[in-house]
């Protein structure tokens, strides 16, 4: 097939369609030379370990060379509250572009305040990899600013945040992808595991072992004097919606976490996918051997602990137990008992799920086509909720009932009060 550019298309059709990005990149015949008008312009908010990996590549990342090495992306802005990170990342991007023909004409700018990135009309999409307590607010503000969004996990720290992100993305017609890349990456192990489970290869699904239990956020408080804030740090912007604290040197991404808020969404995302629960959630939550657990309306029970004796699953995975066998999956393994369950390729008449072989590729493709990503806002809303409900349970330490349609605890005032957390003005969801 000859390469067809969007311009060829428009020329051929005689149409005056002012719509960039509506052509899938596969139809552009992308071969490393993408004209500037076809590139998606991006801003990177938060360029520490995670965001820096997305931007520039690195040992952990699943994007070789990072977004800045992609021919179909032009990074226009880098934002971080730490001067050194911000300047180093911006310099690296500009140095890389200087060595790539035709890429150095639009320099990448460095920003302290993400609102300045959102205010740029020439930026199509943002990647949010900031401390967790910022994720939802920034995603909402990005949607309201008309940006498409990739957001790291946890995508929300409270149930109300999870709902508000999904609503804002829908309200503004944006494309959103959660940083739960296991649906796309790691050789498709997670997708295949979920397809096998949903095809009934282990019989009727009874139990899921999620390896990690719930997570939540909690504001710490401290009053009185603190240490001097270093010149190269914007402490107020680090705290954001958290209560004001005197500077104490801790600018960690997860300093306000309770439980498994950091990693939990990876696990519960796969739990929800396998349980065919992307649009819903648990109906009952309870404690089991000191770990959170819950039950779906289907009767499937999810335990926030490892399957006894099974090592596979701890690295982002889960173990699915059915009436005829079990499947365990993580980033390195996909195994089953009996072993044949996962050896036979998926047949056409079995359950086939949304397929993406590259998380960043899926995001950018959907930015072009305006279709929903493999981890879209609705999925992120519910997979975050599955984790966060466990976080509430972890604090309550007792059984509770949840109505997944109304998204409220049933007859449980105390639990319902924990669906949100007051935020420091002017930040809100």
């Amino acid at each position, binding site marked *: 097939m000859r390469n067809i550019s969007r311009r060829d298309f428009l020329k051929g059709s005689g149409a005056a369609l*002012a*719509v960039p990005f*509506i052509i899938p990149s*596969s139809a552009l015949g992308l071969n490393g030379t993408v004209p500037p008008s076809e590139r998606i312009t991006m801003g990177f908010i938060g360029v520490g370990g995670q965001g820096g990996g997305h931007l520039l590549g690195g040992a952990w990342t699943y994007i070789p060379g990072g977004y800045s090495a992609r021919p179909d992306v032009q990074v226009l802005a880098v934002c971080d509250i730490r001067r050194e990170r911000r300047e180093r990342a911006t310099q690296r991007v500009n140095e890389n572009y200087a060595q790539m023909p035709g890429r150095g004409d639009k320099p990448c700018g460095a920003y302290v305040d993400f609102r300045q990135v959102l205010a740029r009309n020439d930026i199509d999409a943002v990647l949010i990899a900031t401390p967790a307590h910022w994720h939802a607010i920034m995603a909402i503000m990005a949607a309201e600013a*008309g940006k498409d969004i990739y957001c790291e996990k946890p995508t929300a720290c409270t149930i109300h945040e999870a709902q508000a992100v999904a609503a804002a993305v829908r309200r503004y*017609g944006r*494309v959103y992808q959660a940083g739960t890349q296991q649906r796309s990456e790691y050789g498709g192990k997670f997708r295949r595991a979920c397809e096998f489970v949903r095809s009934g290869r282990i019989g009727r699904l009874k139990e899921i072992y999620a390896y990690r239990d719930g997570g939540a956020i909690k504001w710490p408080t401290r009053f009185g004097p603190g240490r001097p804030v270093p010149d190269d740090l914007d402490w107020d912007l680090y705290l954001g919606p958290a209560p004001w604290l005197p500077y104490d040197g801790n600018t960690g991404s997860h300093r306000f976490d309770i439980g498994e808020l950091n990693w939990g969404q990876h696990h519960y995302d796969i739990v929800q996918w396998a349980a065919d629960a992307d649009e819903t959630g648990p109906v009952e939550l309870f404690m089991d051997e000191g770990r959170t657990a819950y039950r779906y309306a289907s009767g499937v029970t999810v335990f926030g602990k490892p399957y006894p004796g099974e090592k596979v699953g701890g690295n982002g995975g889960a173990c699915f137990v059915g009436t005829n066998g079990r499947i365990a999956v993580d980033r390195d393994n996909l195994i089953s008992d009996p072993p044949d369950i996962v050896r036979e390729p998926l047949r056409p008449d079995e359950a086939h799920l949304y397929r993406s072989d590259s998380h960043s590729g899926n995001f950018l493709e959907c930015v072009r086509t305006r279709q929903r990503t493999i981890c879209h806002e609705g999925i992120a809303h519910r997979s975050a909720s599955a984790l966060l409900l466990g976080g509430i349970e972890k604090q309550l330490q007792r059984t509770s009932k949840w109505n997944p349609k109304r998204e409220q605890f049933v007859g449980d005032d105390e639990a319902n*009060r*924990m669906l949100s957390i007051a935020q420091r003005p002017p930040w809100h969801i």
Partner: protein
Amino acid sequence: MKRILLIATTLVSLQSPSHAADATEEDQIAILQSAASQQQKDAACAQLKRIGTARSVPALAALLTDDQLSHSARYALESMPLPEAGAALVGALDNASALTKVGIIISLSNRRETAALSALAKLLADSDFATASSAAVALGKIGGPQAIQALKAARSTAPAGIQPALTNALLRCAEQLLASGDKAAASAIYQQFLDSKEQRFRTAAWRGLILSAGKNAAPLALKALSGDDRPACLAALQLIAEIPGNSATRTVAGALSSLPPATQVAVIVALEHRGDAAAIPALLPSTKTSSDTVRVAALRALAAIGDTSVIAPLAEAAAGAKGLVLEASRDALDRLRGKAIAKAMLVQLPSAPAEVQTELILSLGRRRETSAVPTLLKLAESSMESQRAALLQSLALTADETTMTDLVRLLTNAGSDDVRDAVEKTLLAICSRSKRSEICAAPMLKAARSAATPARCALLRVLGRIAGNESLQELRAATRDKDSAVQDAAIRSLADAGRPDAMPDLLTLAREAPTLSHRVLALRGYWRVVSLSDKRPTAERLKMCAAGFAASQRPEEQKLGLIELPKIPDADAIKLAESFITDNAVRAEAGMAIVQTARSIATAHRTAAKAALTKLLATVSDAAVSEAAEALLSELEPAAGHITVWLVAGPYSEAGKNYRALFDTVFPPEQPDAKQVRWRTLPAGTSAGKPWLLDLLKFLGGEQCVAYVRTYVHSDKQQPARLDIGSDDGLKVWLNGALVLANNIARPITPGSDKAAITLKHGWNTLLLKITQNNMGWEFCVRIVKPDGAPLIGFRTETSPAP
């Protein structure tokens, strides 16, 4: 007094979270109303968030206007499902300072507090930007006629800076109207923003308008798509996948051909995501269009939503196609879902044109449609000559051992080499999948004796891959057959099979087969089995090798055996290799085998490995072997070539300077003749398994600082050398006072990541390093090697230059 005691008791109990939950509401109220610290009051608010009733509201309300504790009070009041909490928040608005007031407004908005509507409406005109904007968003979240009226009124008077917040709020109100079913009212709001100067609002407005349009949603989306407003197109394209109802699918799909090609592709992708089979009839013509891009998009969409009705069009598209169109159409055929697909393919097969037949047959195979096997087999046996290759290819993927008798008959009756080869491949595929070797073997054994030579040879080749005594006996007998072709096929089959039970036969053939080529084939087959036997016990593998070497007379086969020895981690493997070390034809391979085997046993038997290498070095003449042996020997010495003897000075830091700035800050150790330096011995060997690693963090600790380390290197002569250094983080290196390396960086340690060419002078050399520390790990390692990386002989290190 009693109250003070109560507060004190409660405060003590709050130290422990588990006890905190037991504290009563009265206790918390008492704390809030006491002179307790802000910290303690905040903790009480956190408790009241969960257990507070109307009784706590006054105490919490009193904190709302306190800039320090307002957030704490909101923490409790915001989620309290009581009208008293809402009233308290409204009541605090007038007395709160600017940002604190914004916080209260946010809490009211999160509570959807209708009692606050009037107060919030007034605040739209507040001169403080944050207050007015927050009030707008709050009204948007609460929604309803009163909010909408206030927001609309403000649009005409509010300053430009507030307008985006008003628009956002009205979009929220419209969303609520839409959710409540009042599409007309929602639509009226969305209409106001279709011409907004801001693209983000136009996208949102078009999206809302289309969703409000009910049955007209699809035509409206098409209208947006055919216009020239980008935001409208983006909204429409997204909604094509979401507008409910089959009729919407038909409307959009039906308009496909009238859209420009670029838009067609985008709409087809949207229809694919929509997943409604109602689009199929409209998509089918796109599989025949002149644009390959449109064709591929349509084929992909049909793969996702297609049913039995698309089988023929897809097979027709594949027939005669090339490149991506062929790939997409075949992929679509393979991905069609549902149990009815295979049946329909089989029904359509007999009457389809030949090229289409081929595509259907191949797809049935790729789809692993086992239900198709009887039909495919029947057709393969029939006169369907033109499709036989495709049929056998598909049977290879789908058939099981129950078809062996039929396939063997097909093989023995084959009229051409091509058909026979194809059946043989099918038989091989089935046998390799099957776990029931006896059922696989039986029909072939039965047919083998009576079959004509070409068929018999084919059967012998397949039998070679089937485990079991009967197949082995058949092959063994055939190796002595009078027919040289049969004999050749049997020997080759045994040699290729890689089956351990054939090893004695292969050794016999290696000695006794009539031709050299057969003897060589047998011996190579034997070594192949050895190479596949890596899970067998070491002693058994050694015996296999010994027997193999006894039968191997030529260097070529001896070399095959020498490749296997290092895979056996045993000192006896070295002995076997040593028996070849004086044989000129294979001594290099034997030497390498000794080195590699020594490496494999080094962990468990270091002394034996070193002894073997030393013995090898005394006799070997081959340079590559010698170098490899020396390198391994040097590796086996603890921290070989690494300098582990160091003095350390530091840590040094300077206020306001991070590790990057400290890199170029001169501290006493790098000043000539500095007197004030306290040099201490740096402990070595503190990291398990890494004797070469020096850990500064363990010894010195710290962040944003530097340390210096110094040692003396004695060289027997002046000689060129290379420093291989790893450091966490940056480093500078001076040799005899001259800077030889500088790298200002933050990184984890990688041994040898920096290299510097140096010349060691005869006698003592001073080596000084400066290592910077950002945070976390702080370590380094230094190795001196020859310029080409080989071990350097003739140097030693001390912490002071001994006489």
